[in-house]
């Protein structure tokens, strides 16, 4: 922890004013657009590393947003990398008026750049704009609809729905990486208050790419004229097995002519649902669609990396002449139809005359004709080791062509370089001049940390903690019970120490009978004198414990007075019994020759009976 604080302090102390390497700009192709038109938004992110972050568009309720493609340029000049990626989006407005595209920001984990907010004026649709119809509004053509009857009534008469949505893929089975085009059509026979909001579906075992723009048209179904908007999406299966297009939703504002009853219990809910003057908000959803992703056939080439589509590959170097130790950029470009985002760098053949330093990639995606296509360029940094005429052999790029259902291989032409002997100092290659010169380390980008393989050992503490927590509750009772017992014992011992007479009083009978047992044992072994002594001492101790004073030092009369004073309820008969036993014991105790075995045994019995009697009489 201390080390962390020190490192943090050192970093803060060393931090120099950061150079703004990351930048972002956003622009639209026009400042005004009719409600039935499209708007192109281009967000350009530039940076000085091979990869720049993708912008996260803010939540825009006033536009439907579709990803239209991306174009990337990457340059390496004198070892310095510059990247610029243009992300294009098609925006379809939902409401008339001045609409705002909020500030768009990008963050690479270290730097943040923000593009300025843009304002766009959305105007009413009109023939003057000469735009294709965008909003799904039914045309009002006289003669088609029954005169005097609104479309809603006609729909009800015909048993047709006024508004509905359909989603249909162009195929239900495809290979992983093969494009499936999903067509989503939203039909309406009634005019809407605004353009509907499209909430895209989620997918299982599929990835998606928007295919804008939205197409609009009109058609007649069941004698009713509908306007429709069609959105297409390209889907690519990830792995063989079942895939699913989960339900998608379109939220539309339907004008409502029904007044809100102020006495309706749901008055406020109805009022909110009206959403001001824009009508009632309704959602339309599709059913889930199951797809089957087939396994790729066997017999894939050894260096097949999972590319599916139809591709061509070319290679070129940024120069034809170089010196040993100097960096040469070799670009391998893959062009064609398919999910280029998933295409990985082709493996270079063995190049003993070159040292391969780094690989960067740039991606351009186009969506013309509803087909995902484009090009992906992998730039390898090569440094010639030896001089002479050096050839980079053809680079092969195997892929699976779903149209033919077979594996194919595209190959580049060989690239030849004339390499001259370079200076010794040229053997070091730097891709960032700032890093080559002495000075502080300059971060050129950021990324997540790499996966772990447990080389440092698995953490033991979480496992132990989980085990401890999994013990049942009763397993934790013993220490609590032990604590309670120990507490009670301590309290008892303290009470016992504070009240010795009470415990002697309570324990007198038990002690007396133990002595009787001992005396009887002595009598059996013929030690009658010792037995009488034990009974005598026990009797004196019993009376002392009961009275709380040493009775042996008293005369018989004083002892009797003491007992009577201590226990007023004692009977004369009991006192007489005490005197008799006391006398008998004194006689035999002090005249041992008289203590015959039989007499000692009688004394023990008499003492035993007296104890039982006194236990009843001597109660405090």
């Amino acid at each position, binding site marked *: 922890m201390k080390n962390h604080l020190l490192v943090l302090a050192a970093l803060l102390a060393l931090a120099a004013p950061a150079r703004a390497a990351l930048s972002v700009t956003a622009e639209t192709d026009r400042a005004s657009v009719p409600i039935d038109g499209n708007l192109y938004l281009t967000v350009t992110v530039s940076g000085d590393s091979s990869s720049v972050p993708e912008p996260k568009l803010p*939540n825009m309720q006033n536009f439907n947003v579709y990803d239209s493609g991306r174009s990337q340029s990457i340059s390496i000049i004198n070892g310095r990398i510059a990247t610029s990626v243009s992300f294009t989006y098609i925006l379809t407005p939902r409401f008339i008026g001045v609409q705002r595209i909020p500030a768009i920001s990008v963050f690479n984990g270290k730097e943040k750049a923000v593009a300025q907010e843009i304002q766009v004026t959305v105007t009413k649709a009109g023939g003057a704009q000469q735009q294709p119809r965008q909003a799904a509004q039914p045309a009002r053509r006289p003669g088609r609809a029954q005169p005097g009857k609104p479309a809603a009534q006609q729909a009800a008469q015909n048993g047709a729905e006024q508004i509905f949505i359909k989603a249909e893929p162009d195929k239900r089975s495809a290979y992983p990486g093969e494009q499936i085009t999903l067509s989503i059509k939203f039909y309406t026979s009634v005019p809407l208050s605004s353009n509907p909001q499209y909430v895209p579906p989620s997918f299982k075992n599929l*990835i998606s790419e928007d295919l804008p723009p939205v197409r609009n048209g009109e058609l007649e179904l069941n004698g009713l004229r509908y306007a429709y908007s069609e959105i297409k999406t390209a889907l690519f299966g990830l*792995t063989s097995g079942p895939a699913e297009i989960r339900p998608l939703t379109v939220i539309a504002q339907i004008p409502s002519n029904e007044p809100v009853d102020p006495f309706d219990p749901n008055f406020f809910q109805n009022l909110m649902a009206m959403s001001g003057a824009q009508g009632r908000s309704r959602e339309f959803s599709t059913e889930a669609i199951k797809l089957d992703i087939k396994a790729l056939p066997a017999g894939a080439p050894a260096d097949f990396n999972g590319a599916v589509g139809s591709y061509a590959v070319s290679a070129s170097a940024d120069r034809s002449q170089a010196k040993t130790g100097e960096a040469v950029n070799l670009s391998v470009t893959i062009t064609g139809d398919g999910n280029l985002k998933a295409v990985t760098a082709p493996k270079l053949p063995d190049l003993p005359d070159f040292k391969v330093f780094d690989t960067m990639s740039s991606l351009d995606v186009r969506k013309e004709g509803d087909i995902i296509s484009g090009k992906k360029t992998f730039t390898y940094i090569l440094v010639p080791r030896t001089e002479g005429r050096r050839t980079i052999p053809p680079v092969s790029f195997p892929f699976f062509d779903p149209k033919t259902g077979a594996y194919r291989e595209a190959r580049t032409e060989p690239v030849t370089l004339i390499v001259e002997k370079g200076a010794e100092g040229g053997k070091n290659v730097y891709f960032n001049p700032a890093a080559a010169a002495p000075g502080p380390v300059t971060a050129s980008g950021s990324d997540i940390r790499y996966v772990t393989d447990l080389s440092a050992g698995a953490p033991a503490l979480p*496992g*132990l*903690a989980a085990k401890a927590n999994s013990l049942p509750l009763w397993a934790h009772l013993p*220490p609590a019970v032990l*604590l309670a017992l*120990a507490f009670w014992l301590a309290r008892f011992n303290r009470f016992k120490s504070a009240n010795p007479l009470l415990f002697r009083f309570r324990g007198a009978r038990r002690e007396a009978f133990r002595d009787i047992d001992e005396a009887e044992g002595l009598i059996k072994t013929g030690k009658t004198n010792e037995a009488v002594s034990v009974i005598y001492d026990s009797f004196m101790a019993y009376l002392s414990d009961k009275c709380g004073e040493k009775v042996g030092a008293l005369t018989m009369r004083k002892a009797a007075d003491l007992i009577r004073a201590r226990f007023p309820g004692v009977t004369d008969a009991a006192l007489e019994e005490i005197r008799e036993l006391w006398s008998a014991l004194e006689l035999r105790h002090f005249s041992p020759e008289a203590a015959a075995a039989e007499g000692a045994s009688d004394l023990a019995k008499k003492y035993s009976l007296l104890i039982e009697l006194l236990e009843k009489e001597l109660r405090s």
Partner: protein
Amino acid sequence: MTASALALLLCLAAPAAAAEPPRTAAYDRSELSEFNDLYKNGRYEEALEGYKGVIAQQPANPRALYNAANALFRLNRQGPAILYYSRAFALDPRSTDIRANLDYALRQTGQTLVPDAVPAALHYVYYLLSDTELRAAALLFFWLACLVGAAGFLLDGSPSGKAAGSAAGVFAALLLLSLAWYGARVTTSPFSSAGVVVKAGGARILSGPGDNFKTYASAPEGRLVRILDSTDDNYFEIGLQKEGIKGWALKSEIERL
């Protein structure tokens, strides 16, 4: 009497101390390494399937969760990536890799691991122990407080008893501290009773648990939300503390941490 009581104490303490030997090799290194090779070669989807297989067998393996989150991040699935990073963080909050990547992923979605007003060092200390470890620490201090306290009562009156009593007091204070720490975490941590929006494109927040209610907000993918109620079959009641928004979202769009 005292000696026999101490012997009993030791007998009771022994099973607790030796309940389970520390398992340092709970996770199979070679298994993760195999999928890491796929990750290294850019085959993120296959690597992810492999990591998920490991997670299915060992749900409390923070390394597998972390690697799965990395694969999801590479596949540009921010919501599930943040979900897996958060789960890994909940299990092993001291891992600098997990912290760094969780923070990185959260920043991509406009969130931060360390709130702006909180010093990073304080945040580190606050999350030094996981919830599981805090509960285990509370149990440990409970056992120690009880056992040492019992020894103190049994040795009542002696200097040893007095020392044991003081030690039991310290353990009791630590028990209260760990319970207070755990309670604070449960009530204030954004990772407690939380969920993550995993649906691409974000989750709709409705004014009630049903499609007949109005959609009045949306939470972007990867957003951490607090789950207030999960008793409905199809909807979570969720709260967005920063925005002061409370509403209902489909359970299919939000995954509980």
